[in-house]
């Protein structure tokens, strides 16, 4: 059967104008309880008669090729957030077969026509949204796993005219559905695209901002003050474009704040020079962390035979809050590709037996090597020496590895030696013992630790390759990301001969293992293993750490040595939750940026849209750069 013809056959074909994934249906009047708590996508769609609706679709309706799940998630996310700006709209497409299950699932779609929408509100730190088509009743409640309901609100405001109620800042009243659709959007750059549809008031503000950022900001602040103090909104709660101006300003305030702070820190004489805050980036959303995946939730996400049915849901939950200690050792096996998600308990038992045998076969290979053999096998001896040296200096301050003749050190050594046999070409490289130590500490079992280690190494093997090309590439990617997120800091580093980012080598080589306590590194790693919200999220962790230190680097005018010292001294002084939250905020800034260059899109696993920047060669990175403005091809306001 042909998938494409079926799509054509669908009676009420419609276009997705905006999609956002990771949205859980929490409550819906008149729905069976079995429909609740499932994960899906919240969309704004245009129906065949040009009317629009909010639509929620459960995930099992979205066909996903199982082997490309990670990418698919990233793609869905991207299209939802950024492609909608760039291309305006996207045809809904379904790949694969459309079956009877599909019809059943379709019945679970929830649709709220925008014409009927009366009010909506955002609660719980942008984690929850409720909709109402009748005054006094919240009919539908959605939970945003990424804590990013504000993104949906921003998009929804393109399609309906809203006003905030006086008593509750988080409740919006729909004034009228906005049929022209394009009005205000999130960033100034986007407004550039839609100038003809923007009201004069806003456009003047924006164009003034572009030409005279400082004055316009101050002017706008006074307007905002007017609104706040003199109650510009009418008694009816109906507000005109000034409301939108206020919103726009509130959003831009953080940026301005930042810019003015910089002014005082550097030179006050030339405000144009110092407003180097990247105009492409919308303000950073503050995204709170969630609670860890609990035993109950974990069990609830499996079927009776032990298959994990909601893999995406599990990943989402782990991304948001990590894993509870009690089940961490189990869930890690899945995250590290040792246990396939779809296997039953019985199948896992068989797999475990097979993997145990494999492990001991490989272990025997080196255990049975005689001294005479060793003496004629230099490459083996070399690897063995390295392992022995490093095992004796791995996490020895932790009770699990402390003390003379600690038996756990022998296990560490056996696993690493067996890994040498598993992947002799890669062999043993410094840093691997750091990667293994927390795994063994948690699992307490040689075989399980080994296979989890294999899984982790599969993710980061390029870090350890002989030519170090993988590390160099990541350092370059980190530099490019920083240049987009925090150009001022990136340029400072370049000027101080640190544009090669070598000071972050340790971070990237062992995924921040040396920067955090065991407890925190476990949390960080499990979040990173989910592959969410994008590829190479660990680089955004690096960006988040650096961005938080930006003021120190710049105000103290740190040079080459101070930069390295400061970065090394951050070890054990970092707050893992804060960094994860910031990194996720940066991710949202990036995907919401309409001019995100392809170079960065590729790094994050997003589809490319032919925005290029001048590529930084490694040689360029060492050159001091003093030019501003169109640095890297990013236009400046």
């Amino acid at each position, binding site marked *: 059967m042909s998938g494409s013809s079926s799509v054509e056959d669908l009676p009420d074909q419609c276009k997705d104008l905006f999609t956002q994934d990771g949205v859980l249906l929490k409550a819906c009047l008149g729905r069976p309880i079995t429909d609740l708590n499932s994960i899906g996508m919240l969309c704004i769609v245009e129906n065949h008669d040009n009317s629009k609706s909010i639509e929620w679709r459960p995930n099992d309706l979205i066909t996903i090729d199982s082997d490309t799940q990670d990418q698919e998630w990233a793609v869905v996310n991207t299209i939802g957030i950024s492609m909608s700006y760039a291309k305006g709209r996207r045809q809904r497409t379904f790949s694969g077969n459309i079956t009877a299950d599909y019809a059943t699932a379709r019945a679970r779609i929830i649709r709220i026509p925008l014409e009927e929408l009366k009010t909506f509100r955002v609660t719980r730190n942008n984690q929850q949204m409720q909709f109402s088509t009748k005054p006094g009743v919240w009919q539908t409640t959605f939970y945003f796993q990424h804590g990013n309901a504000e993104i949906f609100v921003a998009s929804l405001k393109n399609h309906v005219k809203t006003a905030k109620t006086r008593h509750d800042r988080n409740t919006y009243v729909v004034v009228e559905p906005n049929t022209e659709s394009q009005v205000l959007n999130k960033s100034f750059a986007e407004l550039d695209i839609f100038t003809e549809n923007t009201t004069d008031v806003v456009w003047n503000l924006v164009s003034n901002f572009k030409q005279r950022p400082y004055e316009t900001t101050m002017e706008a602040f006074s307007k905002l003050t007017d609104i706040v103090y003199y109650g510009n909104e009418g008694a009816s709660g109906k507000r005109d474009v000034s409301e939108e101006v206020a919103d726009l300003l509130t959003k831009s305030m953080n940026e301005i704040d930042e810019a003015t702070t910089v002014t005082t820190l550097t030179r006050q004489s030339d405000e144009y020079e110092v407003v180097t805050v990247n105009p492409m980036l919308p303000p950073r959303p503050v995204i709170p962390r969630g609670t860890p995946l609990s035993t109950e939730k974990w069990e609830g996400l499996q079927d009776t035979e032990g298959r994990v049915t909601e893999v995406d849901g599990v990943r989402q939950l782990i991304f948001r809050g990590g894993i509870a200690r009690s089940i961490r050792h189990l869930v890690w096996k899945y995250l590290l590709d040792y246990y396939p998600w779809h296997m039953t308990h019985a199948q896992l038992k068989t797999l475990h037996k097979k993997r145990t045998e494999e492990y001991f076969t490989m272990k025997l290979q080196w255990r049975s090597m005689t001294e005479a053999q060793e003496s004629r096998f230099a490459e083996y001896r070399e690897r063995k020496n390295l392992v022995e*040296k490093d095992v004796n200096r791995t996490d020895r301050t932790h009770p699990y590895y402390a003390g003379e003749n600690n038996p756990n050190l022998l296990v560490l050594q056996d696993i690493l030696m067996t890994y040498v046999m598993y992947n002799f070409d890669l062999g043993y490289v410094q840093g691997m013992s750091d990667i293994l130590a927390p795994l063994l500490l948690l699992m307490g079992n040689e075989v399980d630790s080994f296979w989890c280690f294999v899984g982790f190494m599969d993710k980061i093997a390029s870090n350890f390759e002989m030519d170090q090309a993988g590390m160099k590439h990541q350092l370059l990617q980190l530099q490019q990301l920083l240049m987009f997120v925090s150009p001022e800091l990136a340029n400072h580093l370049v000027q101080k001969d640190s544009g090669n980012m070598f000071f972050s080598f340790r971070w990237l080589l062992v995924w921040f293992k040396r920067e955090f306590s065991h407890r925190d590194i476990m949390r960080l790693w499990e979040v990173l293993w989910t592959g969410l919200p994008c590829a190479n999220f660990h680089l955004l962790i690096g960006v988040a750490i650096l961005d938080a230190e930006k003021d120190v680097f710049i105000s103290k005018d740190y040079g080459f040595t101070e930069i390295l010292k400061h970065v090394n001294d951050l070890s054990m002084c970092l707050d893992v939750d804060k960094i994860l939250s910031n990194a996720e905020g940066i991710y949202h800034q990036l995907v919401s940026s309409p001019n995100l260059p392809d170079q960065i899109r590729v790094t994050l696993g997003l589809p490319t849209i032919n925005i290029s920047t001048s590529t930084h060669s490694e040689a360029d990175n060492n050159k001091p750069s003093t030019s501003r403005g169109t640095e890297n091809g990013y236009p400046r306001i």
Partner: protein
Amino acid sequence: MAKTYDYLFKLLLIGDSGVGKTSILFRFSEDAFNISFISTIGIDFKIRTIDLDGKKVKLQIWDTAGQERFRTITTAYYRGSMGIMLVYDVTNEKSFENIKNWIRNIEENASADVEKMILGNKCDLEAKRQVSKERGEQLAVEYQIKFIETSAKDSLNVESAFYTLARDIKAKMEKKQEASNPAGARSGGGHQLRANEQQRKPTSWLSRCSLL
């Protein structure tokens, strides 16, 4: 603002993985030893200011990861170093053999006039010794580099080693300066300048533990 030192010397510790580079540095900068050091990933440095013939000399000592794989990264830090400690482990034959490779590495990446010194570390582990002191001395003669056996654990000769290297750098610098500035005019800025003091002869400690 007055500087708290007269000279700033950038030094570098290189050698195979596990020969004790970090331990030597820790002994020198903190006067302590910890049997279970962690391996160095990437690069780090420590500072100690010493008094050398009446001058305050600030030593900025860079510590590198030893494994060959990371050499592309670590060699980036060779640039600008004025003195290099080549470290091997007397209980590890291979690390001694590799000193030749490290010297070649220096020739390729560091400035030609960089002061060098070879350290045979872990000389407290007499029972496990694989490289005799004589072989170390012989190698040093071959390359015309100073040599000293050290024990970071027992705090043997670590001070001497750094003082020797620093003194040699200072002497070389002052010689250079005298050559280019025979009138002996005091030079203002720059951390390696302002030196016209008469050179003193090496003191007796040198003969105690080193070859040259």
